């Protein structure tokens, strides 16, 4: 008969849980303690963290080794990334409010999750973002127009995925988790040491697809990193609807080691992702990161969050701002002078201006183009519809701009 023990697996010497020593094989680990919380809204301290909300560097034996090389210059880089991402997000919000975009899903508050988890990727890695991961695409090298061509309604994807190493932003909640696992299976078959990463939300963790993705990833030891951006809400539903205990606690059950990380701590996010990516590159299979963060803005520009949450709650999270704490850290290192901030500010302004220009300069494709790319090879049905539609459009030949490019309004 077995002992009656909590925990899974049986208790082990503490060091065995350190990320650097996580055994690649069958061992299932949860690297950080999880206390099932009565209220997931208040569990934000139960995370791995390297920088406090006030900007002090904290020690974490698991994470520290993964950011030992991060010097002041790199920290400044992360700061700059986040400021630019926030500015990009704000500009797109503004463009939407001005009627230039149909919709925007703001990421304000989640800059650290996105920058911290995307920076560790190599150019030849591949990521699978959701609608909210514009900050990830910033890191992947997006051109200005590539942030919002789709949100403007000009096309379904803002960019060619192979240009950025980033799949098209997924709107069907959770579907991309399986794509990432399949892509990672492809990497295995090619025998390279690339990795795939995938983003999804706390709400998404309820979808069958996300769970199946973990099962497939574990079954095939796929080199994939699951990044759950727990921003505390699925539109109006607090994370407590989706999970009675921390989401990071699910992965070990599927045989996937996981970490629960302060998602507003860019350094911790970078460390955790490096840990997970290293495991994947070395052939040790999938890992899972729950990034505990907060969506400061509305779900999308269509949403009114005052209907379901208090200003107090939002303010509490403002005090955990991901950018401010890096500022604190940099100040402590005397690396936050006017030169630096002015440079960052100028870059941010330039990015915003470029985005605006790109957006306003967009042209709408001709009507007949809606029949393009339905199939990759010739298709009798589409060919016929093209003839019909062409003949129809020709009937308007004298009408202005029919069948030709329209200038954006």
């Amino acid at each position: 008969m077995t002992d009656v023990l909590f925990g899974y697996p049986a208790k082990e010497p503490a060091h065995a849980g350190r990320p650097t020593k996580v055994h690649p094989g069958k061992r299932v680990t949860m690297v950080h303690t999880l206390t099932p919380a009565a209220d997931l809204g208040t569990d934000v301290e139960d995370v791995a963290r390297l920088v406090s909300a006030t900007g002090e560097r904290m020690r974490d034996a698991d994470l520290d080794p993964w950011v030992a090389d991060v010097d002041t210059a790199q920290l400044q880089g992360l700061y700059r990334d986040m400021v630019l991402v926030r500015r990009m997000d704000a500009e797109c919000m503004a463009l939407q409010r001005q009627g230039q975009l149909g919709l925007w899903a703001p990421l304000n508050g989640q800059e650290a999750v996105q920058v911290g988890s995307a920076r560790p990727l190599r150019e030849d890695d591949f990521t699978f973002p959701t609608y909210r991961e514009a900050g990830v695409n910033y890191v992947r090298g997006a051109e200005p127009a590539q942030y919002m061509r789709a949100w403007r309604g000009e096309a379904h994807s803002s960019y060619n995925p192979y240009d950025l190493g980033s799949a098209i932003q997924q709107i069907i909640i959770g579907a991309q988790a399986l794509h990432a696992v399949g892509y990672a299976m492809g990497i295995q078959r090619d025998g390279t040491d690339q990795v795939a990463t995938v983003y999804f939300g706390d709400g998404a963790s309820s979808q069958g697809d996300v769970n199946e993705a973990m099962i497939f990833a574990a079954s095939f030891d796929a080199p994939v990193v699951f990044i759950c951006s727990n921003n505390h809400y699925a539109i109006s539903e607090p994370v407590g609807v989706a999970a009675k205990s921390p989401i990071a606690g699910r992965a070990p059950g599927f045989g996937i080691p996981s970490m629960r990380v302060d998602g507003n701590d860019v350094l911790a996010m970078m460390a955790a992702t490096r840990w997970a990516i290293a495991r994947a590159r070395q052939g040790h299979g999938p890992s899972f990161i729950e990034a505990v963060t907060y969506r400061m803005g509305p779900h999308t520009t269509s949403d009114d969050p005052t209907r379901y949450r208090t200003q107090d709650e939002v303010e509490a999270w403002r005090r955990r701002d991901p950018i401010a704490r890096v500022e604190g850290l940099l100040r402590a290192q005397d690396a936050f002078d006017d030169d630096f901030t002015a440079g960052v500010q100028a870059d941010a302004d330039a990015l915003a201006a470029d985005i605006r220009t790109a957006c306003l300069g967009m042209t709408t494709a001709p009507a007949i183009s809606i029949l393009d790319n339905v199939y990759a090879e010739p298709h009798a049905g589409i060919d016929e519809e093209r003839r019909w539609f062409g003949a129809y459009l020709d009937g308007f030949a004298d009408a202005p701009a029919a069948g030709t490019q329209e200038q954006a309004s």
Partner: protein
Amino acid sequence: MTEMTMGKALNEGLRQAMRDDDHVLVMGEDIGRLGGVFRITDGLLDEFGKLRVVDTPLAESGIVGTAVGLAYRGYRPVVEIQFDGFVYPAFDQIVSQVAKLHYRSQGAVKMPITIRIPWAGGVGAAEHHSESPEAYFVHTAGLRVVAVSNPQDAYTMLRQAIACDDPVIFFEPKKLYHVKGDVQLGTALDDAAPMGLARIARSGTDVTLLTYGSQVATALDAATAAEDEGVSIEVIDLRSLSPVDYRTVTASVRKTGRVVVTHEAAREAGLGAELIASVTERCFNFLESAPVRVTGWDIPYPPAKLEKHHVPDLDRILDAVDRVLDKPNSFTGVEL
């Protein structure tokens, strides 16, 4: 009679149905505190409480699958699918369970589930938010499928769908949520026209124009425009997409001899195909020209800036009317 938007009418219909029968409950994503992303369930949580207005985890198969279990237990769940494009994760539960359990259990297990779907395009939405999946459900035996086109039908047919012992897929055109109309609240359901009947939205003698949902308004506009040219169009709002009220449809076609069908959904194996096939089978000797479809193209729903080229508009409908009247039209000279 009260003037209200379709959204409000649906809200009133739900409220009435919940008051009429305490086994009715609503469930879905964001339908509680938020009142739904379209506010169709606004205020219901306050009136009926958490046990009857259920904010569920984000998983459509889970929502419909648990609704099946509630129906097993005697409840009448009303499920909201947040947008048309998000019904597919629930497809297995709908097709293999909701639609078939009454049959599979030889009538022992009833599935009085209403699945409400904010539906179709024309609202400038992001991808997956403008789908017209009705043909999938029409092709699925065991389901009833309805689509509403005005506030009164929205109010009444929603109550009828909920009261019906069969599962009903209930399509609500997003484009019409804010359009107003007069609604008679609180009438007895028996006094209303049954959910299965089509409605002649406008009488006419030359051409029968079959449609449903937000296309009804476009069809009526086309009929008005055609009148100027001396063409009298009878517009039929199908209301019930499965079963189709072929009695009303064939009576009209036998009168006009000419048929145009319009819908937003793709053409290939869409509901228009069913309508034309059935009309041809039933009215062949009355037809004076080939029935014609004006539909979305056989493409995924296009980006918002281009959707106007996809959703049939007045011009495309009139072009089809010309075609069935053997007048010059865009197909003149095009080989089929």
